[in-house]
Protein backbone atom coordinates (compact mmCIF):
# COMPACT_ATOMS: atom_id res chain seq x y z
CA UNK A 1 0.00 0.00 0.00
CA UNK A 2 1.45 3.43 -0.88
CA UNK A 3 1.89 6.05 1.83
CA UNK A 4 -1.34 7.85 2.84
CA UNK A 5 -1.41 11.45 1.62
CA UNK A 6 -1.80 14.39 4.03
CA UNK A 7 -4.97 16.16 2.97
CA UNK A 8 -4.49 19.35 5.10
CA UNK A 9 -7.92 18.95 6.63
CA UNK A 10 -8.21 22.28 8.45
CA UNK A 11 -7.39 24.28 5.35
CA UNK A 12 -9.67 22.24 3.08
CA UNK A 13 -12.59 22.22 5.56
CA UNK A 14 -12.32 25.99 5.72
CA UNK A 15 -12.45 26.25 1.93
CA UNK A 16 -15.51 23.97 1.94
CA UNK A 17 -17.20 26.00 4.70
CA UNK A 18 -17.69 22.83 6.71
CA UNK A 19 -17.13 22.46 10.47
CA UNK A 20 -15.59 19.09 11.33
CA UNK A 21 -15.39 17.59 14.80
CA UNK A 22 -11.98 16.33 16.02
CA UNK A 23 -13.27 12.75 15.58
CA UNK A 24 -14.31 13.45 11.98
CA UNK A 25 -10.94 15.03 11.26
CA UNK A 26 -9.08 12.01 12.58
CA UNK A 27 -11.27 9.55 10.69
CA UNK A 28 -11.32 11.48 7.41
CA UNK A 29 -7.55 12.03 7.49
CA UNK A 30 -7.01 8.26 7.46
CA UNK A 31 -9.83 7.38 5.07
CA UNK A 32 -9.13 10.13 2.55
CA UNK A 33 -5.39 9.53 2.84
CA UNK A 34 -6.08 5.96 1.73
CA UNK A 35 -8.27 7.14 -1.15
CA UNK A 36 -5.63 9.60 -2.33
CA UNK A 37 -2.96 6.91 -2.09
CA UNK A 38 -5.19 4.75 -4.28
CA UNK A 39 -5.78 7.46 -6.90
CA UNK A 40 -2.01 7.97 -7.14
CA UNK A 41 -2.36 5.01 -9.53
CA UNK A 42 -3.30 7.61 -12.13
CA UNK A 43 0.26 8.94 -12.07
CA UNK A 44 1.48 5.92 -14.03
CA UNK A 45 -0.71 6.85 -17.04
CA UNK A 46 1.02 8.68 -19.86
CA UNK A 47 -1.32 11.62 -20.51
CA UNK A 48 1.06 13.70 -22.60
CA UNK A 49 -0.75 15.17 -25.56
CA UNK A 50 -4.15 13.99 -24.26
CA UNK A 51 -6.96 16.54 -24.15
CA UNK A 52 -9.05 16.59 -20.96
CA UNK A 53 -12.69 15.47 -21.16
CA UNK A 54 -15.11 17.64 -19.19
CA UNK A 55 -18.25 16.16 -20.75
CA UNK A 56 -18.60 12.98 -22.80
CA UNK A 57 -20.46 14.95 -25.47
CA UNK A 58 -19.15 18.50 -25.45
CA UNK A 59 -21.76 21.21 -25.67
CA UNK A 60 -20.86 24.86 -25.97
CA UNK A 61 -22.85 28.01 -25.48
CA UNK A 62 -26.42 26.84 -25.46
CA UNK A 63 -28.36 30.06 -25.79
CA UNK A 64 -31.98 30.67 -24.90
CA UNK A 65 -34.16 33.43 -26.30
CA UNK A 66 -34.17 36.35 -23.89
CA UNK A 67 -37.92 36.29 -23.36
CA UNK A 68 -39.53 36.79 -19.94
CA UNK A 69 -41.76 33.97 -18.74
CA UNK A 70 -43.68 33.15 -15.58
CA UNK A 71 -41.45 31.87 -12.77
CA UNK A 72 -42.07 30.92 -9.17
CA UNK A 73 -44.24 33.29 -7.17
CA UNK A 74 -42.51 34.93 -4.18
CA UNK A 75 -44.60 32.70 -1.89
CA UNK A 76 -43.44 29.54 -3.68
CA UNK A 77 -39.84 30.72 -3.82
CA UNK A 78 -39.88 31.39 -0.07
CA UNK A 79 -41.82 28.30 0.93
CA UNK A 80 -38.70 26.38 1.98
CA UNK A 81 -36.90 29.34 3.57
CA UNK A 82 -35.53 28.67 7.06
CA UNK A 83 -36.44 32.24 8.04
CA UNK A 84 -38.38 34.86 6.10
CA UNK A 85 -40.06 38.22 6.54
CA UNK A 86 -41.95 40.49 4.09
CA UNK A 87 -41.15 38.31 1.06
CA UNK A 88 -37.44 38.25 1.92
CA UNK A 89 -34.95 35.71 3.26
CA UNK A 90 -33.72 36.68 6.72
CA UNK A 91 -30.01 36.28 7.57
CA UNK A 92 -27.97 37.51 10.52
CA UNK A 93 -26.58 41.02 10.27
CA UNK A 94 -23.66 41.10 7.84
CA UNK A 95 -22.44 44.72 8.29
CA UNK A 96 -22.21 46.67 11.52
Amino acid sequence: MPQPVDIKLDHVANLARLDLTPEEKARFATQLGDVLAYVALLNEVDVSGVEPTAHAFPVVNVWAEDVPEAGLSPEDALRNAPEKRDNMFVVPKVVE
Partner: protein
Amino acid sequence: MLAAGELSAVELMRAVIERTKDVDARVGAFNSFDEADALAQARACDERLARARAQGAAARARPLEGIPIGIKDVISVAGQPLTASSRMLAGFVSPYDATVTRKLKEAGAICWGRLNLDEFAMGSSTENSAFGTTSNPWALDRVPGGSSGGSAAAVAAGEAVAALGSDTGGSIRQPAALCSVVGLKPTYGRVSRYGLIAFASSLDQIGPFARSVDDAALVLGAISGHDRRDSTSVDLPVPDFTAGMAEQASGRKWRLGIPREYFGEGLDPEVGSAVEAAIDEYRGLGCEVLEVSLPHTKYAIGAYYIIATAECSSNLARYDGVRYGNRSKGTSDAIDIYFKSRAEGFGPEVKRRIILGTYVLSSGYYDAYYLRAQKVRTLIRRDFLEAFAHVDAIVTPTSPTAAFRKGEKAADPLAMYLNDIYTIGVNLAGLPGISIPCGFTRGGLPIGLQVIGQPFKETELLAVAGAYERRTDWGRRRPRL
Protein backbone atom coordinates in the same frame (compact mmCIF):
# COMPACT_ATOMS: atom_id res chain seq x y z
CA MET B 1 -56.04 -4.45 -18.97
CA LEU B 2 -56.27 -0.81 -17.92
CA ALA B 3 -57.15 0.35 -21.44
CA ALA B 4 -59.83 -2.34 -21.80
CA GLY B 5 -61.30 -1.41 -18.44
CA GLU B 6 -60.73 -4.88 -16.95
CA LEU B 7 -58.78 -3.23 -14.15
CA SER B 8 -59.12 0.36 -13.02
CA ALA B 9 -56.15 2.57 -12.24
CA VAL B 10 -57.61 3.05 -8.75
CA GLU B 11 -57.77 -0.73 -8.21
CA LEU B 12 -54.16 -1.10 -9.35
CA MET B 13 -53.03 1.81 -7.17
CA ARG B 14 -54.88 0.39 -4.15
CA ALA B 15 -53.21 -2.98 -4.68
CA VAL B 16 -49.78 -1.31 -4.82
CA ILE B 17 -50.56 0.72 -1.68
CA GLU B 18 -51.69 -2.43 0.18
CA ARG B 19 -48.57 -4.28 -0.91
CA THR B 20 -46.39 -1.38 0.20
CA LYS B 21 -48.08 -1.21 3.60
CA ASP B 22 -47.65 -4.95 3.93
CA VAL B 23 -43.93 -5.22 3.11
CA ASP B 24 -42.27 -1.84 3.46
CA ALA B 25 -41.78 -2.10 7.23
CA ARG B 26 -39.32 -4.89 6.32
CA VAL B 27 -37.95 -3.54 3.01
CA GLY B 28 -37.73 0.17 3.84
CA ALA B 29 -37.74 1.28 0.20
CA PHE B 30 -39.82 4.41 0.82
CA ASN B 31 -38.87 7.60 2.61
CA SER B 32 -42.54 8.60 2.40
CA PHE B 33 -45.63 8.16 0.27
CA ASP B 34 -48.81 10.16 -0.18
CA GLU B 35 -51.71 7.73 -0.47
CA ALA B 36 -54.39 10.38 -1.09
CA ASP B 37 -52.34 12.05 -3.82
CA ALA B 38 -51.64 8.71 -5.55
CA LEU B 39 -55.34 7.79 -5.52
CA ALA B 40 -56.29 11.22 -6.85
CA GLN B 41 -53.83 10.71 -9.73
CA ALA B 42 -55.33 7.23 -10.31
CA ARG B 43 -58.87 8.65 -10.45
CA ALA B 44 -57.75 11.15 -13.09
CA CYS B 45 -56.31 8.24 -15.10
CA ASP B 46 -59.62 6.36 -14.85
CA GLU B 47 -61.54 9.41 -16.04
CA ARG B 48 -59.28 9.77 -19.07
CA LEU B 49 -59.57 6.04 -19.80
CA ALA B 50 -63.37 6.17 -19.53
CA ARG B 51 -63.49 9.13 -21.91
CA ALA B 52 -61.20 7.33 -24.36
CA ARG B 53 -63.40 4.21 -24.23
CA ALA B 54 -66.54 6.29 -24.78
CA GLN B 55 -64.95 7.75 -27.89
CA GLY B 56 -63.84 4.29 -29.04
CA ALA B 57 -60.22 5.37 -28.76
CA ALA B 58 -59.05 3.11 -25.93
CA ALA B 59 -56.23 1.84 -28.12
CA ARG B 60 -54.75 5.32 -28.10
CA ALA B 61 -54.48 5.51 -24.32
CA ARG B 62 -51.36 7.24 -23.03
CA PRO B 63 -48.38 4.85 -22.91
CA LEU B 64 -48.15 4.67 -19.11
CA GLU B 65 -51.77 5.43 -18.20
CA GLY B 66 -52.46 4.36 -14.62
CA ILE B 67 -49.03 2.83 -13.98
CA PRO B 68 -47.61 3.61 -10.49
CA ILE B 69 -43.98 4.62 -10.89
CA GLY B 70 -41.84 5.14 -7.78
CA ILE B 71 -39.58 8.18 -7.74
CA LYS B 72 -36.12 8.35 -6.21
CA ASP B 73 -36.08 11.07 -3.59
CA VAL B 74 -33.70 13.28 -5.60
CA ILE B 75 -36.23 13.98 -8.37
CA SER B 76 -38.70 16.85 -7.88
CA VAL B 77 -42.44 16.19 -7.83
CA ALA B 78 -44.32 19.45 -7.21
CA GLY B 79 -45.91 19.58 -3.77
CA GLN B 80 -44.11 16.44 -2.55
CA PRO B 81 -41.11 16.17 -0.19
CA LEU B 82 -37.62 16.19 -1.71
CA THR B 83 -34.98 15.11 0.80
CA ALA B 84 -32.09 13.38 -1.04
CA SER B 85 -32.22 11.20 2.13
CA SER B 86 -30.37 14.01 3.89
CA ARG B 87 -31.07 15.87 7.10
CA MET B 88 -30.06 18.93 5.08
CA LEU B 89 -33.36 18.77 3.17
CA ALA B 90 -35.68 17.37 5.83
CA GLY B 91 -39.01 19.15 5.35
CA PHE B 92 -38.20 20.51 1.89
CA VAL B 93 -41.20 20.51 -0.49
CA SER B 94 -40.61 20.70 -4.26
CA PRO B 95 -41.95 23.94 -5.74
CA TYR B 96 -42.01 22.49 -9.28
CA ASP B 97 -41.93 19.26 -11.29
CA ALA B 98 -38.72 17.88 -12.73
CA THR B 99 -38.92 17.50 -16.51
CA VAL B 100 -39.02 13.68 -16.15
CA THR B 101 -41.89 14.05 -13.65
CA ARG B 102 -43.83 16.27 -16.03
CA LYS B 103 -43.23 13.81 -18.86
CA LEU B 104 -44.30 10.82 -16.75
CA LYS B 105 -47.51 12.63 -15.82
CA GLU B 106 -48.13 13.53 -19.47
CA ALA B 107 -47.66 9.84 -20.32
CA GLY B 108 -50.40 9.01 -17.77
CA ALA B 109 -48.16 7.54 -15.06
CA ILE B 110 -48.85 7.93 -11.35
CA CYS B 111 -45.85 9.39 -9.49
CA TRP B 112 -45.79 7.15 -6.45
CA GLY B 113 -43.83 7.79 -3.27
CA ARG B 114 -40.36 9.00 -2.44
CA LEU B 115 -37.74 6.24 -2.66
CA ASN B 116 -34.75 5.94 -0.36
CA LEU B 117 -31.14 6.38 -1.51
CA ASP B 118 -27.64 6.98 -0.23
CA GLU B 119 -27.58 10.60 0.89
CA PHE B 120 -27.32 12.87 -2.18
CA ALA B 121 -26.87 9.67 -4.26
CA MET B 122 -23.39 9.08 -2.80
CA GLY B 123 -22.89 5.43 -2.05
CA SER B 124 -23.37 1.88 -3.26
CA SER B 125 -25.51 0.38 -0.49
CA THR B 126 -28.26 2.85 0.56
CA GLU B 127 -26.71 2.67 4.04
CA ASN B 128 -25.75 6.35 3.83
CA SER B 129 -29.38 7.48 4.08
CA ALA B 130 -30.22 9.78 7.00
CA PHE B 131 -33.65 8.12 7.21
CA GLY B 132 -32.73 4.46 7.64
CA THR B 133 -31.33 1.73 5.47
CA THR B 134 -33.24 -0.19 2.79
CA SER B 135 -33.13 -3.98 2.84
CA ASN B 136 -32.59 -6.26 -0.12
CA PRO B 137 -35.97 -7.99 -0.71
CA TRP B 138 -34.10 -11.24 -1.48
CA ALA B 139 -32.18 -11.24 1.82
CA LEU B 140 -33.27 -8.69 4.38
CA ASP B 141 -29.91 -8.66 6.19
CA ARG B 142 -28.19 -7.52 2.98
CA VAL B 143 -27.99 -4.21 1.14
CA PRO B 144 -30.06 -3.52 -1.99
CA GLY B 145 -27.11 -1.74 -3.58
CA GLY B 146 -27.08 1.97 -4.20
CA SER B 147 -27.41 4.71 -4.51
CA SER B 148 -30.90 4.04 -5.97
CA GLY B 149 -31.47 1.16 -3.52
CA GLY B 150 -35.03 2.20 -2.69
CA SER B 151 -35.99 2.24 -6.39
CA ALA B 152 -34.55 -1.23 -7.02
CA ALA B 153 -36.03 -2.72 -3.84
CA ALA B 154 -39.49 -1.21 -4.46
CA VAL B 155 -39.70 -2.72 -7.95
CA ALA B 156 -38.31 -6.08 -6.77
CA ALA B 157 -40.78 -6.21 -3.85
CA GLY B 158 -43.82 -5.25 -5.94
CA GLU B 159 -44.23 -1.86 -4.25
CA ALA B 160 -44.14 -0.09 -7.63
CA VAL B 161 -44.56 -1.29 -11.21
CA ALA B 162 -41.47 0.66 -12.27
CA ALA B 163 -39.31 3.39 -10.76
CA LEU B 164 -36.95 6.19 -11.64
CA GLY B 165 -33.42 6.38 -10.32
CA SER B 166 -30.29 8.33 -11.14
CA ASP B 167 -26.92 6.89 -12.13
CA THR B 168 -23.63 8.75 -11.65
CA GLY B 169 -21.26 5.77 -11.30
CA GLY B 170 -23.60 2.79 -11.37
CA SER B 171 -26.40 3.92 -9.06
CA ILE B 172 -29.13 2.42 -11.29
CA ARG B 173 -27.38 -0.66 -12.69
CA GLN B 174 -25.70 -1.94 -9.51
CA PRO B 175 -28.86 -1.96 -7.32
CA ALA B 176 -30.83 -3.44 -10.25
CA ALA B 177 -28.30 -6.29 -10.35
CA LEU B 178 -28.39 -6.83 -6.58
CA CYS B 179 -32.23 -6.88 -6.53
CA SER B 180 -32.88 -8.86 -9.77
CA VAL B 181 -34.68 -6.16 -11.72
CA VAL B 182 -33.91 -4.33 -14.96
CA GLY B 183 -32.10 -0.98 -14.59
CA LEU B 184 -31.12 1.29 -17.47
CA LYS B 185 -28.75 4.24 -17.57
CA PRO B 186 -29.40 6.13 -20.81
CA THR B 187 -26.73 7.89 -22.85
CA TYR B 188 -25.55 11.11 -21.21
CA GLY B 189 -27.83 13.80 -22.65
CA ARG B 190 -30.74 11.51 -23.56
CA VAL B 191 -32.84 12.48 -20.52
CA SER B 192 -33.17 15.96 -19.01
CA ARG B 193 -31.87 16.44 -15.47
CA TYR B 194 -33.92 19.56 -14.82
CA GLY B 195 -35.36 19.03 -11.34
CA LEU B 196 -32.83 16.34 -10.38
CA ILE B 197 -30.69 17.23 -7.36
CA ALA B 198 -27.22 17.54 -8.86
CA PHE B 199 -24.37 15.36 -7.60
CA ALA B 200 -21.77 15.22 -10.42
CA SER B 201 -23.18 17.05 -13.39
CA SER B 202 -20.91 15.64 -16.10
CA LEU B 203 -21.92 12.09 -15.10
CA ASP B 204 -25.51 12.14 -13.72
CA GLN B 205 -28.29 10.57 -15.78
CA ILE B 206 -31.87 9.65 -14.85
CA GLY B 207 -33.16 6.25 -15.93
CA PRO B 208 -35.80 3.58 -15.31
CA PHE B 209 -36.06 0.48 -13.14
CA ALA B 210 -38.58 -2.12 -14.32
CA ARG B 211 -39.40 -5.82 -14.12
CA SER B 212 -38.77 -6.37 -17.83
CA VAL B 213 -36.76 -4.85 -20.65
CA ASP B 214 -40.03 -3.99 -22.46
CA ASP B 215 -41.25 -1.98 -19.47
CA ALA B 216 -37.89 -0.20 -19.20
CA ALA B 217 -38.15 0.73 -22.90
CA LEU B 218 -41.62 2.15 -22.36
CA VAL B 219 -40.54 4.32 -19.43
CA LEU B 220 -37.38 5.43 -21.24
CA GLY B 221 -39.49 6.53 -24.20
CA ALA B 222 -41.68 8.59 -21.90
CA ILE B 223 -38.85 10.46 -20.15
CA SER B 224 -36.40 10.99 -23.04
CA GLY B 225 -35.96 14.06 -25.17
CA HIS B 226 -34.37 17.45 -25.51
CA ASP B 227 -35.21 20.02 -22.85
CA ARG B 228 -34.18 23.65 -23.08
CA ARG B 229 -34.00 23.66 -19.26
CA ASP B 230 -31.02 21.26 -19.31
CA SER B 231 -28.32 22.57 -21.62
CA THR B 232 -26.64 19.13 -21.67
CA SER B 233 -29.73 17.39 -23.01
CA VAL B 234 -29.15 16.49 -26.62
CA ASP B 235 -31.39 17.64 -29.43
CA LEU B 236 -31.91 14.28 -31.12
CA PRO B 237 -35.23 12.67 -32.07
CA VAL B 238 -36.47 10.08 -29.56
CA PRO B 239 -37.00 6.78 -31.38
CA ASP B 240 -39.90 4.46 -30.62
CA PHE B 241 -37.78 2.12 -28.50
CA THR B 242 -40.47 -0.58 -28.27
CA ALA B 243 -41.08 -0.76 -32.01
CA GLY B 244 -37.34 -0.55 -32.71
CA MET B 245 -36.63 -3.46 -30.36
CA ALA B 246 -39.22 -5.65 -32.07
CA GLU B 247 -37.73 -4.80 -35.44
CA GLN B 248 -34.20 -5.66 -34.30
CA ALA B 249 -35.30 -8.86 -32.55
CA SER B 250 -36.19 -10.55 -35.81
CA GLY B 251 -33.06 -12.44 -36.69
CA ARG B 252 -30.48 -9.83 -35.74
CA LYS B 253 -27.09 -11.37 -34.84
CA TRP B 254 -25.00 -8.95 -32.87
CA ARG B 255 -21.27 -8.88 -32.45
CA LEU B 256 -20.66 -8.75 -28.71
CA GLY B 257 -17.45 -7.72 -27.00
CA ILE B 258 -16.17 -9.27 -23.78
CA PRO B 259 -13.60 -6.99 -22.13
CA ARG B 260 -10.90 -9.17 -20.59
CA GLU B 261 -10.20 -6.53 -17.91
CA TYR B 262 -13.69 -7.12 -16.44
CA PHE B 263 -13.11 -10.81 -15.72
CA GLY B 264 -10.02 -10.69 -13.55
CA GLU B 265 -9.16 -10.33 -9.90
CA GLY B 266 -12.01 -9.35 -7.59
CA LEU B 267 -14.77 -10.99 -9.62
CA ASP B 268 -16.70 -13.46 -7.49
CA PRO B 269 -16.50 -16.89 -9.19
CA GLU B 270 -20.26 -17.47 -8.91
CA VAL B 271 -20.96 -14.12 -10.58
CA GLY B 272 -18.33 -14.91 -13.21
CA SER B 273 -19.88 -18.27 -14.13
CA ALA B 274 -23.42 -16.81 -14.32
CA VAL B 275 -22.12 -14.16 -16.72
CA GLU B 276 -20.21 -16.77 -18.75
CA ALA B 277 -23.43 -18.79 -19.01
CA ALA B 278 -25.26 -15.69 -20.26
CA ILE B 279 -22.56 -15.15 -22.88
CA ASP B 280 -23.11 -18.77 -23.99
CA GLU B 281 -26.80 -17.99 -24.42
CA TYR B 282 -25.83 -15.20 -26.78
CA ARG B 283 -23.62 -17.63 -28.70
CA GLY B 284 -26.66 -19.91 -28.86
CA LEU B 285 -28.57 -17.04 -30.44
CA GLY B 286 -26.00 -16.91 -33.18
CA CYS B 287 -24.18 -13.84 -31.88
CA GLU B 288 -20.48 -13.54 -32.53
CA VAL B 289 -18.58 -13.11 -29.27
CA LEU B 290 -15.20 -11.36 -29.44
CA GLU B 291 -12.68 -10.52 -26.77
CA VAL B 292 -12.03 -6.78 -26.59
CA SER B 293 -9.68 -4.74 -24.45
CA LEU B 294 -10.42 -1.67 -22.34
CA PRO B 295 -6.84 -1.14 -21.16
CA HIS B 296 -7.51 1.86 -18.91
CA THR B 297 -10.16 0.07 -16.83
CA LYS B 298 -7.98 -0.06 -13.73
CA TYR B 299 -7.79 3.76 -13.65
CA ALA B 300 -11.55 4.31 -13.91
CA ILE B 301 -12.30 4.32 -10.18
CA GLY B 302 -9.47 6.73 -9.42
CA ALA B 303 -10.51 9.11 -12.18
CA TYR B 304 -14.14 8.86 -11.15
CA TYR B 305 -13.56 9.65 -7.48
CA ILE B 306 -11.61 12.75 -8.41
CA ILE B 307 -14.06 14.04 -11.01
CA ALA B 308 -17.24 13.10 -9.13
CA THR B 309 -16.08 14.54 -5.80
CA ALA B 310 -14.81 17.73 -7.45
CA GLU B 311 -18.19 18.27 -9.08
CA CYS B 312 -20.02 17.34 -5.88
CA SER B 313 -18.05 19.85 -3.81
CA SER B 314 -19.10 22.53 -6.27
CA ASN B 315 -22.74 21.42 -6.61
CA LEU B 316 -23.24 21.07 -2.87
CA ALA B 317 -21.91 24.56 -2.16
CA ARG B 318 -25.51 25.73 -2.69
CA TYR B 319 -26.56 24.20 0.66
CA ASP B 320 -25.65 27.25 2.68
CA GLY B 321 -28.58 27.44 5.11
CA VAL B 322 -29.81 30.72 3.64
CA ARG B 323 -32.64 30.14 1.16
CA TYR B 324 -33.63 26.55 1.92
CA GLY B 325 -32.33 23.50 3.71
CA ASN B 326 -31.05 23.14 7.24
CA ARG B 327 -30.10 26.34 9.07
CA SER B 328 -28.23 25.89 12.31
CA LYS B 329 -29.81 27.54 15.34
CA GLY B 330 -27.56 29.56 17.59
CA THR B 331 -25.27 30.96 14.94
CA SER B 332 -24.10 34.48 15.54
CA ASP B 333 -22.95 35.63 12.13
CA ALA B 334 -23.53 34.94 8.44
CA ILE B 335 -20.31 32.98 7.84
CA ASP B 336 -21.01 30.80 10.86
CA ILE B 337 -24.33 29.80 9.28
CA TYR B 338 -22.46 28.12 6.44
CA PHE B 339 -20.06 26.16 8.64
CA LYS B 340 -22.61 24.97 11.19
CA SER B 341 -25.62 24.40 8.90
CA ARG B 342 -23.52 22.22 6.62
CA ALA B 343 -21.88 20.37 9.52
CA GLU B 344 -25.32 19.51 10.96
CA GLY B 345 -27.05 18.81 7.66
CA PHE B 346 -24.62 16.50 5.84
CA GLY B 347 -23.81 12.91 6.80
CA PRO B 348 -20.29 11.41 6.89
CA GLU B 349 -20.00 10.19 3.27
CA VAL B 350 -21.21 13.52 1.86
CA LYS B 351 -18.71 15.36 4.07
CA ARG B 352 -15.91 13.05 2.97
CA ARG B 353 -16.68 13.69 -0.69
CA ILE B 354 -16.99 17.44 -0.25
CA ILE B 355 -13.60 17.48 1.48
CA LEU B 356 -11.96 15.27 -1.15
CA GLY B 357 -13.50 17.29 -3.99
CA THR B 358 -12.46 20.59 -2.45
CA TYR B 359 -8.94 19.26 -1.97
CA VAL B 360 -8.48 18.06 -5.57
CA LEU B 361 -9.69 21.43 -6.87
CA SER B 362 -7.68 23.51 -4.42
CA SER B 363 -4.80 25.71 -5.43
CA GLY B 364 -1.68 23.68 -6.17
CA TYR B 365 -3.47 20.36 -6.60
CA TYR B 366 -5.81 21.04 -9.54
CA ASP B 367 -3.38 19.92 -12.28
CA ALA B 368 -2.12 16.90 -10.39
CA TYR B 369 -5.58 15.54 -9.65
CA TYR B 370 -8.50 17.09 -11.49
CA LEU B 371 -6.85 17.86 -14.83
CA ARG B 372 -5.03 14.53 -14.88
CA ALA B 373 -8.28 12.68 -14.08
CA GLN B 374 -10.02 14.44 -16.96
CA LYS B 375 -7.23 13.34 -19.31
CA VAL B 376 -7.48 9.77 -18.08
CA ARG B 377 -11.21 10.08 -18.71
CA THR B 378 -10.42 10.83 -22.36
CA LEU B 379 -8.39 7.61 -22.57
CA ILE B 380 -11.15 5.57 -20.92
CA ARG B 381 -13.71 6.94 -23.36
CA ARG B 382 -11.36 6.24 -26.27
CA ASP B 383 -11.01 2.60 -25.13
CA PHE B 384 -14.77 2.12 -25.44
CA LEU B 385 -15.07 3.87 -28.78
CA GLU B 386 -12.22 1.75 -30.19
CA ALA B 387 -13.93 -1.42 -28.95
CA PHE B 388 -17.15 -0.29 -30.64
CA ALA B 389 -15.30 -0.21 -33.95
CA HIS B 390 -15.37 -4.03 -33.72
CA VAL B 391 -18.53 -4.86 -31.74
CA ASP B 392 -22.15 -3.70 -31.44
CA ALA B 393 -22.32 -3.99 -27.66
CA ILE B 394 -20.17 -4.99 -24.69
CA VAL B 395 -21.25 -7.62 -22.17
CA THR B 396 -19.89 -7.69 -18.59
CA PRO B 397 -20.90 -8.45 -15.02
CA THR B 398 -22.73 -5.47 -13.45
CA SER B 399 -21.15 -5.86 -10.03
CA PRO B 400 -18.18 -8.00 -8.92
CA THR B 401 -20.21 -9.62 -6.13
CA ALA B 402 -23.81 -10.28 -5.20
CA ALA B 403 -25.41 -8.23 -2.40
CA PHE B 404 -23.12 -7.83 0.60
CA ARG B 405 -24.21 -7.76 4.24
CA LYS B 406 -25.29 -4.50 5.82
CA GLY B 407 -22.39 -2.92 7.66
CA GLU B 408 -19.81 -5.06 5.86
CA LYS B 409 -18.19 -2.18 3.96
CA ALA B 410 -19.59 0.79 5.88
CA ALA B 411 -16.33 1.57 7.71
CA ASP B 412 -14.10 1.35 4.64
CA PRO B 413 -15.03 3.91 1.95
CA LEU B 414 -12.35 2.66 -0.45
CA ALA B 415 -13.71 -0.93 -0.35
CA MET B 416 -17.17 0.48 -1.09
CA TYR B 417 -15.82 2.53 -4.01
CA LEU B 418 -14.09 -0.51 -5.55
CA ASN B 419 -17.50 -2.18 -5.81
CA ASP B 420 -18.33 0.15 -8.73
CA ILE B 421 -15.49 -1.10 -10.95
CA TYR B 422 -17.69 -2.39 -13.81
CA THR B 423 -20.22 0.42 -13.92
CA ILE B 424 -18.10 3.57 -13.58
CA GLY B 425 -16.42 3.50 -17.01
CA VAL B 426 -19.83 3.76 -18.68
CA ASN B 427 -20.51 7.07 -16.90
CA LEU B 428 -17.07 8.47 -17.65
CA ALA B 429 -17.60 7.64 -21.34
CA GLY B 430 -21.23 8.86 -21.34
CA LEU B 431 -22.53 5.55 -22.71
CA PRO B 432 -25.87 3.81 -22.19
CA GLY B 433 -25.80 0.68 -20.04
CA ILE B 434 -28.38 -1.76 -18.76
CA SER B 435 -28.36 -4.40 -16.04
CA ILE B 436 -30.63 -7.42 -16.44
CA PRO B 437 -31.09 -10.45 -14.16
CA CYS B 438 -28.82 -13.36 -15.15
CA GLY B 439 -29.04 -15.82 -12.29
CA PHE B 440 -28.64 -16.40 -8.58
CA THR B 441 -25.82 -17.51 -6.32
CA ARG B 442 -26.13 -20.84 -4.50
CA GLY B 443 -27.24 -18.75 -1.53
CA GLY B 444 -30.13 -17.33 -3.57
CA LEU B 445 -28.73 -13.84 -4.19
CA PRO B 446 -29.40 -12.17 -7.56
CA ILE B 447 -26.69 -11.68 -10.19
CA GLY B 448 -26.82 -9.01 -12.88
CA LEU B 449 -25.56 -8.91 -16.46
CA GLN B 450 -24.49 -5.55 -17.83
CA VAL B 451 -24.82 -4.71 -21.50
CA ILE B 452 -23.07 -1.52 -22.63
CA GLY B 453 -24.23 0.17 -25.81
CA GLN B 454 -23.02 2.84 -28.19
CA PRO B 455 -23.96 6.50 -27.67
CA PHE B 456 -27.67 7.13 -28.38
CA LYS B 457 -28.20 3.54 -29.56
CA GLU B 458 -30.52 2.58 -26.69
CA THR B 459 -32.80 0.71 -29.11
CA GLU B 460 -30.02 -1.72 -29.97
CA LEU B 461 -28.99 -1.96 -26.31
CA LEU B 462 -32.55 -2.84 -25.29
CA ALA B 463 -32.84 -5.35 -28.14
CA VAL B 464 -29.63 -7.12 -27.07
CA ALA B 465 -30.82 -7.22 -23.44
CA GLY B 466 -34.31 -8.37 -24.47
CA ALA B 467 -32.91 -11.21 -26.60
CA TYR B 468 -31.26 -12.74 -23.51
CA GLU B 469 -34.22 -11.99 -21.27
CA ARG B 470 -36.58 -13.96 -23.52
CA ARG B 471 -34.41 -17.06 -23.24
CA THR B 472 -34.40 -17.14 -19.44
CA ASP B 473 -36.84 -16.78 -16.58
CA TRP B 474 -34.56 -15.08 -14.02
CA GLY B 475 -36.48 -11.81 -14.27
CA ARG B 476 -39.82 -13.49 -13.56
CA ARG B 477 -38.74 -14.86 -10.19
CA ARG B 478 -39.95 -12.93 -7.15
CA PRO B 479 -38.55 -12.71 -3.64
CA ARG B 480 -40.56 -14.32 -0.83
CA LEU B 481 -41.48 -11.59 1.61
